[in-house]
């Protein structure tokens, strides 16, 4: 029998399904992935340098725009770091409002992810259900902050807008509906046969590997790493709010799905609790203009995992150094680990499983090094191939 030729498959850098571009070079032998290399250089915007040249207030607007989906995570992490440098304690009501917006952001982000994951495996009904439900959260965020994305609810020393009684009641009403849906999605993720068939055993990441490769967030918790910044290093009002850290020991994409579905329900309960127990009082304090020399490591549990900002101040109104480590960066090594030894058909769902804040792996060129034959696939074709492969080989299909 002729042995299979080794092939190199470049995927990306455009990827219309998700945000931010990334390029993969996949080495395959037949259907099996032998190794994987990635290129994340397509979206460097120099924000760290930009922050060094702007004062704290101006920086906040820039930092809000690091990411579209977890903009509140970045902005909150930055302001709470700067407030720590300034030794400024903000009003309790402001910490609660920040928490409420933060948890709503997590809810919309996880709904978005469940939808995208459903789409990648050919379960488009799920995509439509979750994105319809996500609109409720988006509406709420718009009512609370005035914006659907880049909420800009934070300002140095507190928050920009207060919550009225009317908004709170509306939010509680929406959250009740969302809670019912979250229970349904949790059941779906854990028991629906075709979904389990597509997700179980795919993108294996052992507990030890998750720890040594520095995975964070649902990716790590799906491999049984019991770690959550909200509980272990509490910030804002997280020390007050009761919640459970969801983990799963499946160590695969199914585990990551179970964790996200569980977190949806937790976040909904947390938001409800915070709305019902919102302390009265001021929502902001006047901040000083400058921060005394010092440095701070600010951590935040973003929807995708631990987000780290390193801020160094120099007694002026500007940061001396501002460093960002996003959760997606920390999770790349786990994608490489999870895809090695898997099928080409698993690429879409394993890449989607870390919920990468990246976009656009649009053009895939398949090159057969033996016959010098090459062909091009875009992400949609790769996804269709993946769905077809599972239908023909495993009998998993949702129908047209």
């Amino acid at each position, binding site marked *: 029998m002729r042995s299979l030729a080794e092939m190199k498959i470049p995927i990306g850098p455009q990827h219309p399904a998700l945000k931010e571009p990334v390029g993969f070079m996949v080495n395959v032998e037949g259907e099996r992935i032998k190794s994987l290399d990635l290129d*994340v*250089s397509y979206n460097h915007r120099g924000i760290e340098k930009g922050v060094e040249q702007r004062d704290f207030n101006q920086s906040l607007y820039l930092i809000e725009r690091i990411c579209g989906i977890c903009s509140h995570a970045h902005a909150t992490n930055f302001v709470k770091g700067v407030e720590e440098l300034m030794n400024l304690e903000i009003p309790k009501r402001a910490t609660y409002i920040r928490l409420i917006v933060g948890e709503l952001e997590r809810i919309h982000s996880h709904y978005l992810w469940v939808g995208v994951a459903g789409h990648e495996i050919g379960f488009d009904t799920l995509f439509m259900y979750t994105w319809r439900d996500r609109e409720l959260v988006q509406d709420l965020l718009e009512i609370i902050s005035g914006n659907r994305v880049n909420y800009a609810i934070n300002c140095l020393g507190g928050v920009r807008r207060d919550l009225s009684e009317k908004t709170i009641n509306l939010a509680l009403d929406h959250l009740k509906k969302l809670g019912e849906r979250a229970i349904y999605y949790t059941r779906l993720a854990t028991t629906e046969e075709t979904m389990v068939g597509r997700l179980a055993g795919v993108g294996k990441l052992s507990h030890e590997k998750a720890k040594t490769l520095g995975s*964070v967030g649902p990716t790590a918790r799906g491999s049984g790493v*019991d770690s959550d910044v909200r509980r272990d290093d509490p910030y804002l009002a997280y020390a007050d709010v009761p919640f459970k850290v969801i983990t799963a020991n499946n160590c695969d994409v199914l585990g990551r799905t179970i964790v996200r579905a569980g977190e949806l329900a937790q976040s909904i309960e947390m938001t409800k609790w915070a709305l019902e127990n919102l302390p009265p009082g001021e929502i902001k304090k006047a901040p000083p203009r400058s921060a005394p020399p010092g440095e701070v*490591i600010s951590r935040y549990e973003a929807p995708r995992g631990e987000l780290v900002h390193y801020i160094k101040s120099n007694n002026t109104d500007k940061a001396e150094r501002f460093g960002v480590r996003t959760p997606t*960066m920390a999770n790349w*090594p786990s994608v490489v680990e999870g895809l090695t030894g898997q099928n080409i058909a698993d690429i879409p769902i394993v890449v989607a499983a870390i919920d990468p804040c990246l976009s656009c792996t649009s053009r895939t060129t398949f090159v057969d090094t033996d016959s010098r034959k090459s062909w091009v696939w875009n992400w949609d074709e790769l996804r269709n191939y993946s769905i077809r492969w599972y239908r023909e080989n495993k009998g998993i299909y949702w129908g047209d």
Partner: protein
Amino acid sequence: MTDENPMLAVVKQDLGTKAVEVTAPRRKRITIAATPGTYRDVIKYLQDKMDCYHLSVLQGVDNRTSFEVVYHFWSDRNGMFTVKVALPHDKPAIGTITDIVPAAILYEREVHDLFGIEFPGHPDMRRLLLNDEWPKDEHPLRKDWKMDEKKFYGGVRSSTGGEKSG
């Protein structure tokens, strides 16, 4: 400060002369200043004794007269440990830690890219964040770095470089 870090005394005693300075800015935060000769021992100590399984990030800092590489390690039990190593401003280099901390692989590439700090022993020191057309010796996060448009993309964006709008 009121919330003293109980780990401070323990870490100080255990590290002895290996650390230049140990401080605790607040609860769950300890900063250790180490030297290029001792930082590996300090990191191993954190891994073995302080239960630091997670490297949150490692970052570069330009202090104008020197560079600093800053490692942030997290332990669920003991909080965040920051290890700082000062490096000379002229040809900064520090041995890789990817052999003891595999998670550092991308972060070291990032610092190399943006600060021009070398990490001898790193298995794959290619560019990470800057694009392929970026000139080799331009490290944008250095404080003395200035954008010289003539060096970039064949000079098409410089005011004297030919490209005209409209």
